């Protein structure tokens, strides 16, 4: 198997990821790509607490993730890769051209953002970044849980 889901979610590891996606995909590992979290043992302990012991959690900076991506993609187990914001997704895609999919799973309200979907709020700049990602060959859709429809980027940006 491989990485089954590449997800942008500002909550990073939480119930929708571990249970909502993790159960049906039978996930064995989660890669959390975040420069800040990858440098903080305390933050890593927090995120590990939300994951059952049989699921491995790997923390990586963007730079390390780009290097390690081929290994995770060829892993015989099923995994999920998470980033917390659009800038991190763009940075990772820029360093790892083999990355061809991104699921926008949750980007929530903040000053300057407009509601695009119930679970996706974006500034105009963030929306433009997602469109550019798609124009570069990355399949960008929005979908919070597996039972929902995958909304194409053209419908929410």
């Amino acid at each position: 198997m491989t990485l089954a889901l590449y997800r942008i979610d500002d909550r990073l590891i939480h119930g929708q990821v571990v249970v909502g996606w993790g159960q049906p995909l039978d996930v064995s590992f989660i890669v959390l790509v975040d420069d800040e979290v990858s440098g903080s043992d305390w933050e890593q302990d927090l995120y590990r607490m939300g994951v059952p012991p049989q699921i491995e959690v790997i923390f990586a900076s963007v730079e390390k993730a780009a290097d390690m991506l081929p290994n995770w993609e060829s892993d015989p187990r099923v995994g999920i890769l998470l980033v917390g914001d659009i800038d991190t997704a763009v940075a990772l895609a820029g360093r790892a051209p083999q990355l061809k999919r991104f699921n926008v799973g949750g980007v929530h309200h903040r000053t300057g953002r407009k509601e695009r979907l119930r679970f996706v709020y974006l500034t105009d700049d963030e929306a433009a970044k997602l469109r550019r990602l798609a124009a570069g060959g990355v399949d960008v859709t929005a979908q919070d849980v597996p039972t929902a429809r995958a909304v194409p980027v053209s419908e929410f940006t």
Partner: protein
Amino acid sequence: MSELRGVIVSHAAVAKAMVDAVTAITGIEGALTPISNEGCGTAELGDRLREAVGAGPAVLFVDLPGGSCFTSSARYAKQGGADIAVVTGVNLAMLLDFVFNRDISPAEAARRAVDAGGKAIHVTRP
């Protein structure tokens, strides 16, 4: 010692339902504040926590020992703006004990909550 605030942090409407249940059982109002993570990211959840906790002291009762409610609560408590304890696995039994015992420290209230909440979990065989 000022009286403790209790803040329930949950997914969806669980926190609000628990506050309503405690009020229905005890008649005590205002001891608990519900917070939902519905529709908000970690930054906005932090804002909701700040508003609910105020100057504290407070106990944050979180639904699960992981996920956005927990990480936001733990992060907020770590900031050190108020005397705060975080308890996970909130249930009605620990809340009922809490509302009658709020003249203690957050740490002591957290210990009471774990004890009262744990004692309420039983398996009953027919």
